[in-house]
């Protein structure tokens, strides 16, 4: 175990130097660095916010159910199929009765793979809706895969909208990721007060233009909505003239005449046409601008608005006008989002954590190094060199993968320092034992390495298992810990079996005639 070929020595040196350069490149400040890689700091170290959002899919599911119900009724009417007791139960299933003659026909309709009412997903080998028939009573529920499809599509839509909204806020390198099939993870580095982002994400931003009516009672086509500013309520027609889909752009502006902050908007061609038609017919009526079920403002229409440009005034401050315009531009979320987890760290706490983490690392490192030197002298020195290189390798690999370093990650590095010497200690202690019976130093050292190999490997693999499990089960900062711990095991094995062994071999071969080496 003490023989190293020239190529081997070269490869070990090359590998070590390469990662050492990578590690050091983290601390250089040259912009034109050849190695343009750096370790990322986690949110707990650089400060920032972490938000976990969950989509409330209930309204989406209900809406989908209502659309399906309308399709079914239309089909029945077109095909002159008699049905009764048609209803939506508990917002999750459709139920109806048919005559027994039509029973088979309807069953076939829903089970046909090419029908449009109940789509068939070939990748899951399942329909969107499941059929439950008792005699002539039909009941339709979303199948497991039907729900998955609905959730996935609303997740993808929501992800896009969330991205757009956060990009518009203009924070530093935000991270927006899917989690599971109804969650979105948002990481905002450098932002320690996510209030504005939370406000923006808390709105579905369903925009509609609808006329206010002068009726005093709610009729079939109207509903009662509150004003956003709290100044009472009004009856509003359910007929939507325009929705947010027809919006091309929205910007906050200052009205020169009234000195008021307004939001001006531009409609697309279809929207402009529709808007022009509605406003020319509705001169004198109040046009309600409604966002998420609340009336933002309801100006009286004085002229037909034909050019597709308009403006909304609603007691905006410049900030709220900016956010309102942003919401209109980015579009509506398919469903409301709830914030189910939030973690924010201020930048000064992050800096404090880095300082104390690095300080603890330096202290721990020196304590271990001093201890090893006094215990093993020359071999302690060899162990220490391999420990220092071990650290550089670890940082180098983290840099190569541009891994994220968290506070527990720093703890993982310190722990690696403490445990890395274990392998060298195991070997040195074994060598000591071997020298008691074997007088030839080279053979004794060789035996020591040979016989302690399995113990070193087993001991490190068990820690590696723990690190791997942490990696897959943990989140955020804990993941950072498992990464440094796991990579630390590989660099430890490398530094012990290649670097320390090489140095030991060189020393022992040079001093093979001495009585007692260790």
């Amino acid at each position, binding site marked *: 175990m003490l023989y190293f070929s020239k190529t081997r020595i070269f490869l070990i040196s090359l590998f070590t130097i390469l990662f050492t350069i990578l590690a050091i490149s983290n601390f250089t400040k040259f912009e034109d660095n050849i190695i343009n890689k750096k370790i990322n700091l986690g949110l*707990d170290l650089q400060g920032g916010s972490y938000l*976990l959002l969950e989509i409330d899919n209930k309204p989406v599911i209900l809406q989908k159910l209502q659309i399906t119900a309308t399709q079914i009724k239309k089909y029945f009417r077109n095909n002159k199929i008699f049905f009764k007791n048609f209803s939506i139960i508990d917002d999750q299933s459709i139920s109806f009765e048919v005559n027994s003659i039509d029973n088979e026909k309807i069953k076939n309709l829903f089970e046909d793979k090419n029908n449009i009412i109940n789509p068939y997903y070939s990748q899951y080998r399942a329909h969107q809706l499941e059929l439950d028939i008792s005699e002539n009573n039909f009941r339709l529920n979303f199948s497991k895969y039907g729900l998955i499809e609905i959730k996935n599509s609303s997740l993808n839509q929501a992800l896009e909208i969330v991205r757009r909204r956060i990009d518009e806020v203009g924070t530093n390198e935000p991270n927006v990721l899917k989690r599971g099939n109804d969650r979105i993870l948002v990481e905002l580095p450098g932002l*320690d*007060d996510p*209030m504005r982002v*939370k406000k923006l994400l*808390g709105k579905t931003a369903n925009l509609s233009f609808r006329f206010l009516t002068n009726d005093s009672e709610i009729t079939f086509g109207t509903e009662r909505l509150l004003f956003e500013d709290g100044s009472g309520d009004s009856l509003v027609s359910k007929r939507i003239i325009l929705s947010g889909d027809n919006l091309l752009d929205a910007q906050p502006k200052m009205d020169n005449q009234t000195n008021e902050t307004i939001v001006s908007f531009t409609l697309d061609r279809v929207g402009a046409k529709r808007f022009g038609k509605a406003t020319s017919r509705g001169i004198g009526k109040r046009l309600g601008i409604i966002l998420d079920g609340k009336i933002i403002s309801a100006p009286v229409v004085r002229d037909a608005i034909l050019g597709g440009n308009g403006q909304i005034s609603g007691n905006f401050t410049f900030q709220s006008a900016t956010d309102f315009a942003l919401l209109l531009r980015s579009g509506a979320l398919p469903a409301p989002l709830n*914030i*189910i*987890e*939030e*973690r*924010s760290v*201020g930048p*000064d706490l992050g800096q404090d*954590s880095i300082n*104390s*983490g690095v*300080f*603890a*690392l330096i*202290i*721990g490192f020196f*304590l*271990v190094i001093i*201890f090893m030197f006094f*215990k093993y002298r020359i071999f302690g020195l060899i162990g220490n060199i391999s420990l220092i290189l071990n650290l550089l390798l670890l940082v180098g690999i983290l840099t190569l993968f541009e891994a994220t370093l968290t*506070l*527990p990650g*720093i*703890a993982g590095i*310190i*722990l690696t*320092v*403490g*445990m890395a*010497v*274990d392998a060298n*200690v*195991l070997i040195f*202690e074994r060598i000591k034992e071997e020298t*008691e019976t074997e007088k030839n130093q080279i053979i004794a050292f060789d035996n020591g390495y040979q016989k302690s190999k*399995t*113990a070193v490997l*087993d*001991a490190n*693999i*068990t*820690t*590696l*298992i*723990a*690190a791997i*499990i*942490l990696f897959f*089960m943990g989140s955020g*900062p*804990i993941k950072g*810990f*498992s990464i440094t711990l796991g990579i630390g095991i590989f660099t430890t094995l490398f530094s012990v079996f290649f670097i320390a062994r090489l140095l030991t071999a060189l020393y022992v071969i040079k001093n093979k005639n001495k009585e007692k080496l260790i």
Partner: protein
Amino acid sequence: MAKSNISFNKFYKLFNLFSILLVFISILLLLFKGLNYGVDFKGGTLIELRSTDKQITISKLRESLLNMDIGDVSVKQFGNKDDYLIKFEKKSKNANFISEIKNDLSKYLGSGFNFRRVEDVGPKVSAELLKSGIIAIGLSLAAMLFYIWIRFEWQFSLGAIFALLHDVLITLGVFSMFNLEINLSIIAAILTIVGYSMNDTVVIFDRVRENLRKFSDIKIFELTNISINETLSRTIITSITTLLALMSIYFFGGEVLKGFSLAMILGVIFGTYSSIYIANPILVFFKVSQKTILKDDKD
């Protein structure tokens, strides 16, 4: 270090009783006193506040928070004398209640403070985190059991697992007894303890196996003692260096890592102890002999 010859095996019975007692107390504590879960596992809100105004005291802070309608609030000093940790459970429906609290607080206390850290975990997420924490610990124990079973024999595997359970239970017991907070980083610490304790046990087992091959006439009772002694200096040195590293995290690594490093320190101490006094007596109990390892010993 001169070669040691300590009769560890004389005290197997005594320390086994001691361990059984400790584990028993720990289980009682866990069952009846329970663990002090942090917001990660219980849900709720945590705010780390730093005051720059000498007028702000812990009682003033508590008083102003009680005036707001946020339910049970706990306020504690956190490390530095100007830092406070505020925790409460009530989950407001309003997404912006944290900034509301900030506004309300500045009404009472002025502007001489800032929020350094905010953690707000909903009930659904905290339940999931707890579940995945428990699964992670269970999974790692199972993986260790399996690994040792493959590398050694089932008797060794059982010995190692009992030692691990012993370490994990007693560490949790200490946390329960002193009402220390269990959060995500404690789960990470426990998993690392599992790895470390295993590491220690494996080194001794490796020597036991080697000695079993070498000596056919020494009884396992004696053999474990020889193996423990042969590896003792390594056991001590590694424990010292690991503890040195952990102590420096505990004393200098900042408040956030205190609980984590404390759990690890306990784990290393109990892990070292259990490799000697739990894992080995179990080999004795199962009367492991040369035959046990020779059955499929071809490598």
